């Protein structure tokens, strides 16, 4: 079972970086790096909602939650507690 981090990285690299895995660091700010534009944010939100079966609320759509791989992992672990538990089991 891939980790959340792997799932997020795979999505970002595949959708926005033409498959170039090496150019993405987990603490890179998507905004500062220009990784994607406002359409890309829509794609990211759709991905999160479909993949993790959640409905994101307007006040959750902020850079603090979504602006890097690390932000996303932490946000998802808070937002979907079951994911954090599953993640912990994967890491054991």
């Amino acid at each position, binding site marked *: 079972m891939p980790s959340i981090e792997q799932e997020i990285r795979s999505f970002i690299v595949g959708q926005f970086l033409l498959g170039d895995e090496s150019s993405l660091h987990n603490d890179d700010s998507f905004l500062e790096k220009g990784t994607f534009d406002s*359409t890309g*944010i*829509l*794609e990211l*939100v*759709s991905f999160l909602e479909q993949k993790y079966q959640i409905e994101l609320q*307007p*006040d959750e*759509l*902020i850079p603090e939650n979504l602006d890097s791989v690390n932000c996303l992992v932490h946000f998802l672990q808070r937002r979907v507690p079951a994911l954090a538990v599953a993640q912990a089991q994967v890491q054991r």
Partner: protein
Amino acid sequence: MQPTLAISQNALHLDAAAETDRITAAIREAVGQQLRCKGAVVGVSGGIDSSVVAFLCARALGSDRVFVLFTPEADSSPESLRLGRLVANQLGVESRLEDIAPILISAGCYERRDAAIRLVVPEYGPDWKSKIVLPDLLSSGRYPIFSIIVQSPAGVQKCVRLTADAYLGILAATNLKQRTRKMIEYYYADLKHYAVAGTPNRLEYDQGFFVKYGDGAADFKPIAHLYKSQVFQLAAYLGVPEEIQRRVPTTDTYSLAQSQEEFYFSLPLDKMDLCLYGKNNNVPASAIATAVGISEAQVERVYSMIEAKRNATRSLHLAPVLMAPIPEIK
């Protein structure tokens, strides 16, 4: 040491007579010498920008060398055509009405757009109306995520956040409008051996508020260096009809009335002007905050939105990228 700047709308004041002389000389040079054309085609929407461009072209080239085109479609406000005709009549230039709705219907513009809207609003039908909006980006740190406001035939409105597929589908279909308009403009340009005038102002040009090869396509752009407030100053000097000067800027692209700040800027245009001026001239956010009447943190947010939008739309300004240089062609 640089003196502290007292920033106000006066920062954007220009000598309208001198600027008109400078631009008209530049239009003559561009059309006659660089482009080697006999006149100019101007698509006039009834808005302030295209009206000012038509007035400048008529002053530069003469009324008999300006051809004004009206290209309404199914979602255009009838006001746009009426105001556009005012411009043509006042200038005494040749004009033509080309209703582009039949072309757009044939191209599937409305059908494709409605199908994209139905991805998020399944009940959306042909009698419904819609517009795309952004959240208030100043009062929150939220991403600029587009939503659509739909209105049923009974007048009931609702707002739904767009998915990427829906947004891109609506955008791609809607952009057919601007590209069709430009196609017709170039038809007349070819027919008369005229050049096509573009009508973006500085905000639009800088922030990529145009469709590539649509309204972004032109042979020359007479007011692309002018802030919106400066365009209004020129309009007053040139004698653009007052109704047009008073009209609230609109995209006139969606079936529900949509202001430009709703779609793109999130700030009234005069305030956005000052923020852009401040960013371009390294004015501290605190000085702009006082002039605009928003907080310093909000100005900082606008400054970063401006930069982000520049980055996101940089490719709109690019010519096709070649895989090897062709030095003979510059």
